[in-house]
């Protein structure tokens, strides 16, 4: 085994073989993140069910009952939760990825391993959380279906795996960007939580996209790559919501662009970031 250490490596060179070699570490990081969080809690992983559940209830009360936003035939609970499932997966990965360099700096200053492992581990960890969220959602969904609420599952449901993948890649892409930029601008650390919050309201989660009618706002709404994911996902389950293929294509474009550019930027930054920590 020969290790070459050279100054000024080309910025596009990403060592994929090395990533594969460290897969054991990847799995252990995932395991650590999944287990360490639950230690010394009574409810353990149940917290990942409770949180979205409570958010859904709050949304149902505030946006459904108080503000009375028109969501069509769909039961409020199913409407909000279907959006949140996707959103939480995306936001979870983004959050994890954004902190991957800064919050692990103690380790990264002392030992080398491919740094990309950290944000990638977030994608897998969050997948487990997504699984829990999704099962909860399915429970309610099936119950409402059985009750005969106006739900019409359709062929767009087949798109589900692609939508989940898109969430993952998008979250990873944005996470890599934020993580790289945070090394230089710590401002982002403070801005991120509320940017995510704002972004959530810019995504049709508490309202259907159809409610936005002004052409300009509509354009802006569909420029948000998460809009397509949420709308298509919701449509597959409920039969309501817009199926705008152009929006989906644009969303995939943004996703891939952010992912590739994020990977390259992160790869450039991680080489010497310990010097500026």
């Amino acid at each position: 085994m020969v290790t070459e250490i050279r100054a000024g490596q080309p910025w596009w060179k990403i060592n994929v073989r090395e990533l594969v070699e460290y897969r054991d570490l990847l799995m252990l990081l995932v395991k650590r993140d999944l287990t360490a969080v639950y230690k010394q809690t009574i409810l353990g992983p149940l917290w990942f069910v409770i949180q979205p559940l409570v958010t859904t209830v709050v949304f149902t009360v505030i946006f459904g009952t108080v503000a009375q936003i028109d969501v069509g035939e769909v039961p409020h609970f199913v409407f909000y939760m279907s959006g949140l499932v996707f959103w939480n997966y995306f936001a979870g990965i983004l959050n994890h990825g954004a902190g991957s360099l800064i919050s692990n700096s103690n380790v990264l200053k002392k030992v080398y391993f491919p740094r990309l492992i950290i944000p990638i581990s977030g994608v897998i960890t969050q997948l487990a959380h997504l699984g829990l969220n999704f099962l909860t959602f399915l429970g309610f969904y099936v119950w409402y279906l059985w009750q005969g609420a106006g739900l019409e599952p359709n062929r767009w449901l087949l798109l589900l795996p692609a939508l989940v993948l898109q969430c993952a890649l998008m979250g990873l892409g944005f996470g890599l960007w934020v993580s790289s930029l945070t090394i230089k601008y710590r401002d982002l650390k403070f801005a991120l939580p509320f940017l995510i919050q704002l972004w959530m309201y810019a995504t049709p989660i508490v309202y259907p996209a159809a409610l936005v009618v002004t052409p300009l706002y509509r354009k802006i709404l569909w420029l948000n790559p998460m809009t397509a994911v949420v709308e298509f996902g919701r449509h597959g389950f409920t039969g309501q919501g817009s199926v705008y293929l152009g929006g989906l294509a644009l969303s995939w474009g943004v996703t891939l662009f952010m992912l590739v550019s994020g990977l390259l930027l992160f790869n450039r930054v991680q080489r010497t970031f310990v010097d500026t920590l």
Partner: protein
Amino acid sequence: MSEPAIRVEGLSKCYQLGAIGRHTLVDEMQHLWCKIRGRDPSAVMGKVFSSAVSQRSDKEFWALKDVSFEVRAGEVLGVIGGNGAGKSTLLKILSRITEPTAGGATIRGRVGSLLEVGTGFHPELTGRENVFMNGTILGMKRREVAAKFDEIVAFSGIEKFIDTPVKRYSSGMYVRLAFAVAAHLEPEILVVDEVLAVGDAEFQKRCLGKMGEVANAGRTVLFVSHNMAAVRRLCSNCLWLIDGKVARTGDVSVVEEYLHASHEGALAVGGRVDRVEKEHMVLSEIELVNGNGGRTNRVNMGEGIGLRMVVCSKVDMPVASIQFALFDESGNRIAALHSQFTHLESLSLKKGTPVEVRATIASMNLNSGNYFVNLGVSDLVLKGNSFLLEKVLSFEVVPRDVHGVNVTPQKDAVVFFPVQWEFSGCDV
């Protein structure tokens, strides 16, 4: 002869001093705005943020400059040098934690680098989980850790607590487990920092023992240390760095040269310092005085000695403390003489008034050898005013027939005590 295990060619590393870039997005925007308008950003911004921003870029610091050397397979190379010589930077680059600015290195074989024990330990996880975590972070495969797991636990000696979260461990147990993992890392090339400097004496001994084992097993080791005794014992060759450049390479005799040079480097070899001026303090005289009040640089074992100096503070220090610290030639801190131990809150220095200080050591209970003195003057209220001079003095302790038996004691430890032996029930 085959290719060397480590070949370093023209390795250089440059750091930016002072403010690194612009710290906030606002600064950056301003910088960009200036650029767009075609003005020199540093000139405009310099007015706004007078210090931090304008000083950048021209202040570079080369931690390593054009360093080249080779380490043969099976060689144990000790890297020595004073503080800031570039040892840690070299380690960081060879461990791939950061990239060099120029040049490069080729390493043949699996590298294990130990800059710390217990990297990646998570307090909430159990000892068992952390062994796997730490092992894989250090580059082992999961099954390799699994295969050695029993051995690691046995070595650490904490079998009973292996399923307890490490946050409940005592610091000793923590370090033992962490070191056990590190010790079972079996790379072909080992890059080690002074991880050995942590922990108690017993632990250090074990670490050095393990290091010796690794070295004897024919593996290549690059060992960075301040501990000259350890370097002398473990290493076959030495690399001496000064200011980021290779000063000398060769066998362990380089250690002696290094020690000799740092002895010379002491500001005053028993003699008188002309004048050292720092930001807050002027040291105009410092010397060792013997019982007769004469200046000296030699002390007989067990005899008294005085440290005398004249300092003048440039600021008022209402609560001051003066400290002398004694170091042996390997850089181990032997003793600290602090004025606040006896004169807490009673020593004050007036701005511009020279003060003569005399510290008398009744009996020099050190074995023969060369020693250094660091001088510190601290303001116990405003820490920023503190003043530290390293190696301000050096002196030699001369062996003497302290027990009056016509035998000078052999040096086998740093400290000596005059002892009176009494025996009964046997022939003396």
